[in-house]
């Protein structure tokens, strides 16, 4: 009977909204992101002819007069079409300083240059700026015109393409992303460790306290969960700032002299404290749910078998909480590695993480390609760690509750 298959089909149909939802909210943005990190046809569309002519250029000296003429014409048109700025920004990213060159060239050439061409376009352009006589300028334009590029990825790991085409490390002073990735990694590991150290006893207390206490404690852990992230982060500013509660108390107790108040906010300390606080529930909850399932009798049994409390904890209790430790740590770590708002608010200069840099390139410098590359590397790192975790611990051993 044909109808026999229909319940299965109908059941599959029920998952369509979910699949569509995942597609729209997850796959599509991710795809766009990854595309942006390697593909940018903006310059190719604005200066198509220039790039076509440059393709034949051997890359040494300066290109032919015809190329100068083409680029001048296209820059003039770009100015009229108001696309000049976008092209200038992108070329400038390859070689800084070229923005003004690109922008001022059509302006100086004047509206009538097309109708009344100069005898030598080359001379006219070099007159406007010496940069037009440099090989690097043309290389930059050609490079910016590549729709597919590994530039952003190289940039994101502090590498650059040298003029001779080889790939090498950036000069020391411009290496910022790799140190930032490392800092993010260390902060995330540190926050995860702190959350574990603080969260384990809390979860233990909640799981094994009498039922009245355990409810109270659980609510205490969850209340911050329900308040706005912004409020909680701001609360730390109130507490930790120079004239804040903690410093006041330390001064009052004479632990710290008044003129040497501790800098605990707008730096790495602030990031650490606030992130640990914000992420703590994500550690406590999986731990709690695993611990609650461990019968208290197990510890009695261990004691009756001759184990000291320490041995009983180490051999009987701790191993049984490992699935919760794994789940909580992975959760906190993955949340921490992409954390943005807290470091932005309380991290100051030294407490910024890679996400803040991604946000900067998204919102301020508008270098979406680089932002996408940075984000993609972060994503790869997380996936890599996840796979590593799966290999070492096994994802199926993880329990969220």
């Amino acid at each position: 009977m044909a109808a026999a298959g229909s319940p299965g089909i109908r059941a599959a149909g029920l998952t369509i909204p979910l699949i569509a939802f995942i597609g729209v909210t997850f796959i599509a943005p991710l795809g766009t992101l990854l595309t942006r990190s390697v593909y940018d046809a903006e310059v190719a569309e604005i200066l198509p002819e220039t790039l076509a002519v440059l393709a034949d250029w051997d890359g040494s000296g300066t290109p032919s007069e015809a190329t100068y003429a083409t680029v001048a014409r296209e820059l003039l048109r770009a100015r009229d079409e108001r696309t000049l700025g976008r092209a200038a920004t992108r070329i400038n990213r390859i070689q800084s300083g070229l923005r003004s060159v690109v922008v001022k060239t059509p302006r100086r050439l004047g509206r009538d240059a097309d109708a009344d061409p100069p005898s030598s376009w080359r001379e006219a352009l070099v007159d406007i700026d010496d940069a037009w006589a440099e090989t690097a300028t043309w290389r930059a334009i050609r490079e910016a015109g590549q729709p597919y590029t590994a530039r952003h990825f190289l940039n994101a790991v502090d590498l650059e393409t040298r003029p001779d085409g080889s790939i090498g490390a950036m000069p020391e002073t411009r290496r910022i992303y790799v140190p930032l990735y490392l800092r993010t990694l260390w902060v995330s590991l540190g926050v995860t460790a702190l959350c574990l150290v603080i969260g384990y006893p809390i979860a233990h207390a909640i799981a094994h306290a009498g039922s009245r206490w355990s409810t109270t404690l659980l609510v205490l852990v969850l209340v911050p969960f329900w308040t706005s992230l912004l409020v909680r982060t701001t609360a730390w500013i109130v507490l930790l700032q120079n004239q804040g509660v903690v410093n006041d108390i330390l001064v009052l107790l004479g632990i710290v002299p008044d003129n040497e108040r501790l800098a605990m906010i707008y730096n790495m300390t602030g990031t650490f404290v606030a992130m640990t606080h914000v992420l703590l529930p994500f550690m406590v909850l999986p731990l709690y749910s695993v611990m609650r399932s461990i019968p208290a009798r197990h510890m009695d049994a261990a004691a009756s078998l001759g184990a000291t409390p320490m041995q009983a904890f180490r051999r009987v209790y701790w191993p049984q909480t490992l699935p919760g430790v794994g789940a909580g740590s992975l959760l906190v770590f993955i949340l921490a590695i992409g954390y943005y708002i807290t470091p932005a608010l309380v991290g100051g200069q030294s407490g910024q993480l890679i996400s803040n840099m991604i946000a900067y390139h998204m919102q301020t410098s508008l270098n979406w390609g680089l932002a996408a590359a940075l984000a993609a590397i972060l994503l790869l790192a997380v996936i890599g760690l996840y796979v590593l975790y799966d290999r070492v611990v096994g994802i199926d051993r993880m329990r969220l509750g």
Partner: protein
Amino acid sequence: MGTAAPHVEYRNVQKSYDGQTLVVEDLNLAVQKGEFLTLLGPSGSGKTTCLMMLAGFEQTSAGTILVDGVSVQDLPPDKRGIGVVFQNYALFPHMTVGGNLSFPLEVRRMPPTERVERVQRALRLVQLEGFEDRRPGQLSGGQQQRVAIARALVFEPDLVLMDEPLGALDRRLREEMQFEIRRIQRELGVTVIYVTHDQQEAMVMSDRVAVFRDGRIEQVASPETLYEEPERAFVAHFIGENNLVAGTVVGTDGDICAVDTGGSTVHAFDVAGSAPGDGVLLAIRPERVGVAPETGQYANELVADVVDVVFIGDHLRVRLRVGSRDDFIAKIPNIVGHGRVLPGDTVRIGWATLDCRALPPDPTVLQTEND
């Protein structure tokens, strides 16, 4: 026994969890070396609490517990060296069977070769050779049970506590395990204090049984004594089946008293040392009741109406009305030539004086009878 101290002794032990109600009222109990003693009682009567105080997981509120004549008051549980089998086994799920058994040996820093040998011996004892690499979750209930017993024995304690270890098993497995536990206990000569609320289990396994009720011991005796010579109505009611009839003492003669049961007077063995006018509860076992006996066969006789007759197989179960109550049970053995009775018959019933015990009255027990 001579001068040897009891293996375990509870002296005036009290326990209260909340500081108000006594869960254990005033416990005095001595357990001899190599004895199998069972704590038997209804749920909530304090049996587990008594075990946990001995094992060290609960503190006594008053009194002392002595092991080999020495107070264990200040000894933490891990220093007491008492094997414990918990109600729900409490096997460690993240360790294999071998790991579970070897755990107590490892914390005692026993060398590996000896450890392996001991584990093997323990597995052999509970007939689970070859199971050492399984996890507890991969075992049947009865197998887990045996692992729990093996684990409590593997470090060779001379005292083992078992808290309703067979509670979760079906009847057949239960009976098998009862036999096994008893065999192992005899083989090793360990002292076992065993908790159950199944009176049949207590009877089958124990050297002596302590009957608990509301934190007190009603009676401690061998199963046979408990059955034949209960001293309290609660015990008479709790162990096996008993007919309980309320009456008033009208006369005494040494161990024998005459009791008016509301119309007829019967004689009974006087347990409580009653005086005329005292209320008593008479306890007569159903199998000791003769139905329609030959005249003069029994010293005590009553007239009763047959309410119901049920054929069980090896016996007939006859329910009779005696006075105002209709829950008097008699068991008639199904033997050749025994007369049949039918519902509606009026019959004489009778019993020997020594088969009828006059016990101190106990309102709660009779109330239970009324339900």
